[in-house]
Every structure is written in C-alpha cells, then in structure tokens.
C-alpha cells in the first residue's frame, strides 16, 4: 500500500505543478501558439487529476472533448490565420496589465479564503471506480435529462448560428444591417482558366 500511496502523491504533485505552471504559461506567454499548446498540457493534467480521483470515464471524456476537439480547433483557427505581424501598440498597456493582475489576485484570494474556511469532509466519498460509467448514463437519462437535452439544443443553436454567419450567401440581405448583401464579395464565380486560355490561343491562331 505504501508504494501505491507514494506513487499517488508523486503523480499528484507532478500533475498539480504542470497544471499551475501550464496555466500561468497560457496566460503570460506572448506567443499565442505556445499558449494554445500549453492549454493542451493543462487539459491533459486535469484529466490526470480526474484519474487520480478514480474517475476514469470523466478523464477519458476530458481528453476526448477538450484536448481532441476544443484544443485542436483552437490550434486550427490560430494556424489558419497565422499572420506573423507585431500587434499594434495599445496605449496604457502597463496599467491594463496591473489592473487585470489585481482583479485576478483578488479572485484568487477569494477562492483561497473559501477553500480554507470550508470544512471539507476528509476522506471524501468512496469512489465508484468502473461502475461510474453506468451511473453517469443512468443519471443523464433520468434526473439530469432536461439539462442534458438543453445543452444539446444550445449546441445545435450555436452550430446553426455559425453556419448562418459563415454562409451569408443564403440570404439576399445582410442579417445584421438589413442591407442587400453584396453577393459578389461572398462567392466569386469560378473563372474557367483553362477554357479561357485555350480560347485565347484560338484567337491568336485566327489572327495569324
């Protein structure tokens, strides 16, 4: 048992360190790509903490959803608009940083106070282990059915909204301003390059 508990402690310390340092890196690093990659590390260490809490299903879901989908999409967006240009100088940058730092510190102190004053039940409830997968399913389809379905409707709305914003050509007028949409800007007609060039050549031949 001692070996198991020592391993657990070492894993906990390592995961917490990567979590805290990684999150600081996400916020503080100037390079946005590094921040995005560090975010993946943060998500992975959160999944590791779930594993330590014997919640393997949640850990795998965390990896699948946050690392595999959310983080990859963030990276995708960053790399598709990968312009290596210096950001424009913002007036009063130092003041802004100090202010946001103060706000974050205040929030941190608040959470710390809650953490220290709450009488935590130690040790916590006994973990269910592998049975938790079945229980999560039962809860999702009984007492948590409404929030579950509401979340799916919310996601559907977000998806339709994204499609509408991305494909404005389905509307004759602009959704926001109400003016007639400039269809020419939305989708340029394909210029048949090969046909044009061959047509030009025949013209040349005719001239000759």
């Amino acid at each position: 048992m001692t070996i198991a508990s020592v391993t657990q402690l070492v894993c906990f310390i390592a995961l917490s360190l990567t979590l805290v340092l990684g999150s600081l890196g996400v916020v503080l690093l100037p390079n946005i790509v590094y921040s995005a990659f560090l975010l993946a590390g943060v998500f992975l260490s959160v999944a590791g903490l779930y594993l330590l809490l014997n919640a393997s299903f949640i850990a795998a879901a965390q990896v699948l959803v946050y690392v595999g989908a959310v983080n990859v999409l963030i990276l995708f967006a960053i790399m598709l608009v990968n312009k290596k240009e210096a950001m424009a100088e913002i007036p009063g940058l130092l003041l802004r940083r100090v202010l946001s730092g103060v706000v974050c510190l205040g929030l941190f102190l608040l959470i710390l106070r809650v953490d220290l004053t709450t009488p935590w039940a130690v040790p916590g409830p006994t973990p269910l282990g592998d049975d938790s997968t079945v229980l999560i399913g039962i809860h999702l389809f009984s007492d948590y059915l409404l929030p579950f379905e509401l979340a799916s409707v919310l996601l559907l709305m977000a998806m339709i909204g994204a499609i509408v914003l991305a494909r404005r050509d389905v509307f004759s007028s602009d959704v926001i301003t109400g003016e007639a949409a400039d269809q020419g800007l939305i989708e340029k007609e394909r210029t048949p390059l090969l046909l044009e060039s061959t047509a030009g050549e025949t013209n040349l031949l005719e001239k000759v």
Partner: protein
Amino acid sequence: MITSWPALAVVGAGIDLQSSFTSTLEGFGLSQGTAHLLWLPLPMLLVLVAAVIGVLVNVWLERKISAAVQQRIGPEYAGALGVLQPMADGLKLLFKEDVIPHRADGLLFTLGPVLVLVPVILSWLVVPFGQNLLISDVGIGVFLWIALSSIQPIGLLMSGYASNNKYSLLGGLRAAAQSISYEIPLALAVLAVVMMSNSLSTVDIVNQQSGAGILSWNIWRQPVGFLIFWICALAECERLPFDLPEAEEELVAGYQTEYAGMKFALFYLGSYINLVLSALLVAVLYLGGWGFPFPVEWLAGALGQSVDAPLVQVITGSLGIVMTVLKAYLLVFIAILLRWTLPRVRIDQLLDLGWKFLLPIALVNLLVTAGLKLAFPAFFGG
C-alpha cells in the same frame, strides 16, 4: 443461424501470469508490494517489444506485397526473402544526422513526433491477447483508445507548425481535419458494438463474441459497422486511399517534410504501430478477438480434456495469441493491398465521405442496432 448462446460462453479463469509471478517472488521472501513493483514493467516491455516487432514485420510485408502487386521481387538479399531489410531501414534511420532546420522552432519540432507516438503506444494498454493477457483490463477499454487517439492531431499540428515550411503546415492541418472528421463515425461504430456487449472493456467485448465460434462474431451482426470502422481506421492511420496529409505529389511529404533521422523514424514507427493497433482492434471488436473459429471448449470436450487442465490452458492461451495476431495481420494485408491498388481521394471527396456519407450511415447503424437489441435481445446482447 447467428446466435450468441450466453449459456455456452464458457469463460474460464484462464492463466493468470501476474498472480503466479508475484506469488513466486513472495516465495523468495519479497514483500507483496515489491513483487508487484517488479511485475509492473514486464508486460509493458513485452507489449512495447511486440509492437516494434509488429512494425518490422509490417514494413517487410509492405515491401514484399507492394513488390508482388507491381510484379517485382522486392527485397531479397538482406536475410532470407529480405526479412532483415526492415532492420537495415531502422539502423539507417538511427545513424542518420538529426537535422533541425534553420529558423524552425526547435522545442516544438522535437516534441511533435513524441506526441504522435506516445498516445499510440499507450493505446496498446487495452489490446487483449487472451482472457488475462493484456496490460490492464480498464473499465473504459475502447473509449480510452478513442480518447488517446484524439491527442495525435496535436502532435501533427505541432510538427507541421514548427517546421517553418508551407507544405508541413498544410500537411499538419490536413491531418488534423481528417482525424477529427473520421473520429466521429469511428466512435459511433464502436458505440454500436459497445451497446451489444453492454461494456466498454475489450475483454468483455471479446467474451460476448465467444459463444458459438465464428458464427457469434460481431461482423455478422454489425456488417455496416465493420465497414465504417475499417474505412475510418484507415483514415485515422493516414493510409492510402486517405494519405492526404503526406500526399507526395502535392505536399512533398506533408508534416514529415523537414524531418530526418530518428525523429522521422518516430513518425514512421507511429504510423505503422497505429496500423497494427487498428487491425488488432478490428479483430477484437468484430472478428472475435482471441477466439478460435469454433469454440476451443468444444474441441477440448471432444478430446476428453478438461478446459481447466494446465496444459490445455497453455495451449488455448497460445492459440488465442496466434488467432489475434493472425486476424490482425490478415487485416494488415488487406490494408497494404488497398494501398497499392487504390488511387488517392481528393480532400473535398475525403471530407464529403466522412461527413455526408459515413456519419449518417453510422448514426442509422446505431439506431438500427438499438432497435434490434430491443426486438431480439437474445441475438443482439440484451
């Protein structure tokens, strides 16, 4: 007649190497914890070695089968029938200079291939070769594999970005897009199987198929799911006809363009280990895993032997390993044959196939499986 007589699914305790190993060590006077600690690295090392040897076999098969498809002879001089050729390839890569391109991001450039390889190797955790012949029978089983395989695109994006090369970046982006698109139908196909076996654990999925030998394999109950899974697995492994991320006519070599030496070898290793892993999982999910085409229990009964006799257990265990590997390499053979006979799809065809064809079909497959499970619980694992 397709059935899964649950009453006949004799699941013996099988050989438990772990408990015998630890009890032997405890017999030498070691504590239980130390014995367990000494046991832990053994299966991991064994599986790692098995994976690497699997890759060597795979490379040799790829060379020989491609040669046969193109009516050549293929490697011939390195060992009998050229079996040592993959070793030569590997040694060559090991001794090549490790080049990091000028103005590339050194840290991300190094980390990328590692992030591609590690999740693939971790996924071998759940591949069973027998009742107790796997590293860990974790409860979330195949879900762990799906989750781990979603880490890979991050490594691909990382190496594509860090190479400071347009082709690499494009290859990385393509790899990530492809991986995300095909993960969903893949997961849905797995979900149908999981629904029939009432468990995510790979061992339970195989045991559920062990009732009547070949007749109870999932491929008869999930033919559509099998095809979806196989197509998606090929796409996830970036095998032709889906090898767009490294399409050599368009992108030089995609995200691998700037890599040389051992870092390139890591990509190479990763893709082949992934192929073997996918083939093994197809065997586990649809082809009865370690099951023999007819139940071994019947054979033992016909020969008048008890299934629990030690010698019979050793024989059935070895037979299980042989069957798993045989099924996996049959699928690898099909994958290699596909690679050397089919043309590559275009990127728009790839995305159309994934989103507009496979995803709806996978959803319908899931729905039909659920309906059949409710209607015929005896045949579809009620």
